[in-house]
């Protein structure tokens, strides 16, 4: 039983956690039995963060209805996602103040005031923390430090056990993530003796992905965020990481992409909700890479590559391993979700539905509703990734097509005989009926439902694509 604590810091952290959730939902391999996502962001209103929390809650809820044991072949939602607290996030207090109020600058003694005045600019001191650190992680390194004294951090320490791993997601060019990551790292590595398990923490396997710029923001002279500084900031931060970070992590994942797309320029808050991006998926893969890593002895630097450069990536463009990690789980889930979304309601009279006891009522129950919601998020995720720049569009998301033609780069096996003469959803229904016959009836409806769909889609992968 090993846990993977995944700290998602700031907006990027949240988005990567979202991707991770979806990957785990589809059943991408994760050797950790449990993932503990912890979002850290003082920007309480950040939409990215809130959406991720929603998704994590949906995941957790769905997962809680499912049972996994040795006989369980279902990989959907296989990995447990368990919250440290119900919100999946560490609360940071007083984030509605100015920085100088936060540190109570005014009542500092002269010498400390002098030090602070030199280290922090006037602009820093007057910055409103409600909107994150707007690209000033030096402030973040102080403000975020409050979590070390929070109950949540204590709870984290208490729950940490030998063999558990820690992964930290952050972006290097923003505010919160850039600051939070080294801060968190240093706090763990120099965990206070007052914390439980502090020695385990100090030596814990830690992985981290640092997301380098992969999107731009539109030019806005009023904003503290300026795209043109992204690279220079990145380089400066990388230099800091070289000495101040890299040596403290077991595996350091670096990731970035050409700045192709300019997002709207928001300094945070509800407006900051960016389309999902392949890079986030790749970062999520880093989490899994670390989770699955067996050799943690050395300070590794890992980088991510693909086979072919394209502005619209498909599975075939990915590296072989990546492709194999993703192709089947995503494709299976793609069929799963598509079927649920487009067909299931009309097939409640079919054989498999009857066998599984899936009726109208099931569709209205919390489990299915939440699954549906999560799927919607996941579908949006796929959509956004496919239309983003650079795009990751492994599927044709056009419902008019034969579903089996929708995995780009794959040619489905077609036949005029037997079951394979059936097309599209008919083929799936047929397979579902077939699979349902073998289902263990002792399991719960939810388990059987998932199991049937997983097994079916798995078989289809073999049947149609020889995977």
């Amino acid at each position: 039983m090993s846990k993977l604590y995944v700290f998602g810091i700031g907006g990027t952290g949240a988005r990567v956690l979202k991707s991770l959730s979806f990957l785990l939902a589809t059943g991408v391999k994760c050797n950790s039995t449990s993932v503990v996502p912890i979002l850290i962001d003082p920007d309480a209103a950040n939409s990215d963060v809130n959406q991720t929390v929603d998704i994590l809650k949906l995941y957790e809820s769905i997962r809680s209805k499912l049972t996994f044991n040795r006989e369980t072949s279902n990989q959907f939602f296989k990995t447990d996602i368990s919250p440290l607290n119900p919100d999946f996030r560490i609360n940071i207090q007083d984030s509605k103040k100015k920085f100088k109020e936060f540190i109570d600058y005014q009542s500092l003694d002269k010498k400390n005031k002098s030090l602070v005045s030199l280290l922090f600019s006037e602009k820093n001191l007057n910055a409103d923390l409600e909107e994150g650190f707007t690209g000033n992680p030096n402030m973040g390194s102080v403000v975020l430090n409050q979590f070390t004294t929070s109950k949540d951090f204590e709870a984290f320490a208490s729950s940490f056990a030998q063999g558990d791993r820690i992964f930290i997601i952050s972006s290097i060019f923003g505010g919160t993530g850039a600051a939070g990551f080294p801060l968190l790292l240093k706090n763990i590595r120099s965990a206070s003796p007052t914390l439980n398990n502090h020695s385990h923490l100090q030596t814990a396997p830690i992985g981290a992905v640092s997301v380098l710029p992969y999107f731009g923001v539109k030019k806005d002279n009023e904003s503290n965020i300026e795209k043109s500084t992204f690279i220079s900031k990145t380089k400066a931060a990388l230099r800091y990481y070289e000495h101040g970070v890299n040596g403290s992590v077991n595996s350091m994942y670096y990731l970035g992409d050409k700045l192709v797309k300019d997002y709207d320029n928001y300094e945070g808050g509800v407006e900051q909700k960016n389309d999902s991006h392949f890079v986030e998926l790749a970062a999520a893969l880093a989490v899994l890479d670390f989770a699955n890593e067996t050799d943690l002895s050395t300070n590794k630097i890992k980088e991510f590559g693909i086979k072919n450069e394209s502005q619209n990536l498909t599975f075939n463009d990915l590296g072989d391993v990546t492709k194999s990690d993703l192709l089947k789980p995503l494709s299976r889930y793609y069929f799963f979700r598509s079927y649920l979304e487009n067909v299931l309601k009309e097939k409640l009279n079919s054989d498999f539905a009857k066998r599984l006891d899936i009726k109208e009522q099931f569709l209205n129950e919390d489990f299915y509703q939440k699954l549906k919601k999560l799927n919607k998020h996941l579908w949006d995720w796929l959509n956004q990734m496919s239309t983003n720049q650079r795009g990751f569009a492994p599927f044709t998301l056009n419902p008019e097509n034969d579903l089996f033609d929708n995995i780009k780069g794959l040619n489905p096996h077609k036949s005029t005989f037997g079951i394979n003469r059936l097309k599209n959803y008919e083929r799936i229904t047929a397979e579902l009926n077939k699979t349902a016959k073998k289902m263990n009836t002792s399991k719960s409806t939810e388990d059987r439902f998932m199991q049937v769909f997983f097994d079916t889609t798995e078989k289809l992968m073999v049947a149609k694509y020889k995977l």
Partner: protein
Amino acid sequence: MAYNFRFHNGKDVEGWENSNPLNEVAIKAIEDPNGAHSSREITSIPSPYARIDLVKTAFKEVSSIGPDGDTIYHKMVSDALDVGQIFFEADKYSDKIEIISWDRKADLNNLINSSNPKHKMLGESLRLYLEQDQLTYNFDALNKFYFINYTEGDNPIDIIGGTSPSTLFFTSANKYELKDFQIGNDILLDDKYMPLYKRDPDYVKYLFSLRENIPGLSSKMKELNDYFDLTYGYLSTDLKSQLKNLGDHYKNLPVLNIDGGGEIVEVLGINLKKAKGKQDSIKDSDFVIRPDRENEEVYPPLVLPNEIFNAGLNYVSAPWDSNAKAPHFDPQKLDQRTLPLDGNKYPYLTISDFLEPVIIRTEFPVDKNYFFNAGYESYEDEQKGFVLPIKPLYFKYFSVDNLEQTINGEKRFELKPLSGGYVEAILRIPIQKDNHITFRRTYTNPVNQANKPEYNEEINKGTIVENRINIGITPFYKFPEGIHQEYNVALYEGDFIFENNRYELNYFDAENKIVPIGNVHKVQRRFKEEETYNMFGEIVKSNFDYIQLKHEFASGIIIPKFYKRIGGTSNFDFSIDFGTTNTHIEYAIDKGIPQPLQIGKNEKHHIASLIAFKDFKESYLLALRNDLFPEEIHSKSSYQFPQRTAVNFHKKTNFSQPVFTLGNISIPFKYEKESFALYSKVRTNLKWNSNTDENKKILFSFFEELIKIIRNKILLNGGDLENTQITWSYPASMLKHQLSQMESDWRNLIHTYLGKNVNIRKVCESLTPYYYYYKFQGIAAMEKPLVSIDIGGGTSDVAVYKKVVPILFSSYKFAGDAIFGDNFNRNININGFVNKYYSKIIQKLRENGQLILMEAIEKIKDSDSSHDVISAFFSLNDNKSLNDNSVDIDFLELLKTDEKFKVIFLLFYTSQMYHIAHLLKAKNIPIPGVISFSGTASKLLTIIDTSKNHDNLKHLTIEAFKYVFKVDEGIDIDIRLPSNPKEISSKGGLSMAGNQDIDLDHIKETLISNSNLQVGAKNKISYKKVKDFEDSAMESFDDFLKFFFGLNKSYSYRVNFGIEKASLDFTEAFLYKKKRNALKTGIQNKLNEISNESDEEINETLFFYPLVGTLGELAYEFEKNKVN
């Protein structure tokens, strides 16, 4: 084609694969699409110590890009170097910065242990990164941070930078606009980035020496070290070689500490140092003043331009920015000043150090013949002048003479008229390399003369104040070595604008030192409330180069153009005839022909007046001639010698306090010519009135002024004081104690003013005329004796010569005053001559418009001295004003034609001849061949003899001798009576050879009465016994009357002199009636005169007393009764 999700190049990866460490090489390879030109500070370092990291990165980047550039990295490097330079120059900025230290243990613990959770959290963060990042930033070796707090900022804490264990120095990300932080042309912490190699070589040397002294700097501060290496390549060969041989440079720099205390400033345990005083290098600035004078200042000040200056001269460490302007004014003391645009503490001079804010304008033009007027030529109708608006500091560096010179073809100083009566002063100050700084100040007219002058030195705005002033100075030359230095300066001010405005003169010597107060005596002679102007007389016992005129609203300087070619080799002889009425001085150069002492038009340097001696009517200008002396004294001017023996002073002069000749007492050359102010007093009759302290001082002053004039005469005419001879004469009848007092006065004065080598001769005034005749008139003392009679105002002296040697001498107070004076208790109201002629003369003056002169005579009459009035009458004949206007008032001529009074003059002459005949007879001296006359009153003899050969006088003389010697035939006596009898005495004094002051005691005889001869040397008869001689004196007088009235029978007085019988009869009766009483009064007066000196021998005949006591009354009777 494979694609890697990263920014740098490297091996291809697929999926998540191990890669190379993202090290410096890789980071560097990341291509920044914007280069490093980001307009924003980089903020992405996730550490509270981000600034330290960023600056470190900046050094690294700049080391790779190159030292020059405008990237954000260049900015950070430049700023950090600025902070280092401020630390280095901490002394220079000591009034603008403070250094604050932060102790890693104590101050951090204050936070961590704070009860304030926010401070605690801050402290925890700071601690976390200090510990976790210690190797990266050398925090392991950090003891303290040191910050520079800009104390003139908006907030109490405005930290502009501090020390860094990574790069020595770092800055905050704030933008500061610092005032006066500039080194050379580099404004610190501005938007222009300055690489190290372009900075002050001293700073470069310091940093390189610091590098050598911080162990392991090359690895601990690799980025900085690389930058140093880079910088080195750009340095000059000279500096490179200096850096190669730094030696003990670091050791020799002063330690930088906090507030000069024990807390040093260090980085990684190594002391930072500070700049040695920059003064020594600033001394090499091209702007250092270039004085003419010897200047011993260790740090000679700079002179900085306050207007565009583009000569490209080197300022402190860079050329002067041609657009820069130094302030017009700096309130700091010179040694407390900091250089503008630079901030180094070093003295520099502004225009306001040299030029006054207020210029003093004089009502009339300054006399440029005597005073430097800076070339000012008013082009407006209203002619004005200016006192130079230069401050004395200028002359610390430059000589007064050079102010009139040019520099680079332009005047060193000039005053230029501007329209509207404004004036511009231009001062050019020499600086190094033959350059100069030009200072200009415009002085504007005051809005209202009555307001206090409004000026503003900070904006170079001057203003004008007009003062009604004049200054006179005598003498007008510099005293040579060894000569007593003494100037008389008269300051006149007639302002009515400002009440109680006090004027002051300060004298500056050749060393520009103020003449000490002990060498300047000040006295006020005239008072504004009495005469509408003040006059201050100042005696300055020191040479001086210029005068500072100062009052409460303005100051300015006056530069006299003193005559320089004074003295010479000529031998000057002076002879001073100090007379009762008039004083005369004759002089001869190199034993040449004697001539009266004159101050000619060409002798310009006896005296000078700031405002020219012109025909100004303003009383405050006119008084100078009275208070000092006139610019010209000669026979063709209004003033001349012989000069009336008189002094003039304020009525309230307190003689118990010091009085100063030409300060508050002087010879009134205008006496008998012009009137004197109401509060002024003229004192005459100095010669016989020296018995009180007051009179002694007055007499001394009179002599002193004469000696000063003589001194000037010698020095201004090529004379050699050492070979000067002064002959002064005295009356034989003067009492001994008076004489010795006078002798001491003369000696003291002559020794003081002319030196101790002057040959002083004392001669009896009775003896000198002979030598005149002897030398210039060809009269030798032949076989027959020669009698020389000197008839002055008070005494008549008789000397008898035989073969050039005086063999007999006698003196008596029977001279001019016996006729005109108010003898024996008479007064002016009963003076016959005054009564008869005063109103006539006044009327004539009035009719001829001679109102000034008229008033002068009237004032003299107010003195109630008949002597003075008569003297004034006589002076009219020589009065320039009358002569210029062809007004003829010749009192002597009037008397010649006035037959009524003639008997008086006849008695006067005949009695003298009678007495002299008896004197010679008593001494067994033969009848003389020649009788010569001299002295002022000798001219009275012409009243009874207008002929050229003096036949009448000759006849009367022969008759007297015949009567006394009782001979009938064979007598021929030649009479010599010159037209200028007063001058004879002085001329004769000059003619005496050697020191011929014969001891008159040996030959002095007093014929007390005809039968009683006071014999010299032995058995002296004192005044105790004088009354014993009354009777015989009466007998002698009776005998004279017998002779006189008897002579009429053989020599008709009516025929020869127009004297009517009635008049003669009246006279005879009158004399017989009054003679005894007059004799008694005469004796008593004499006794009174000698008062406590009754042991004094009888030195005067009693013979004339009856006449002295009667002639005045006789004249009055003639006038009153119209006896004819």
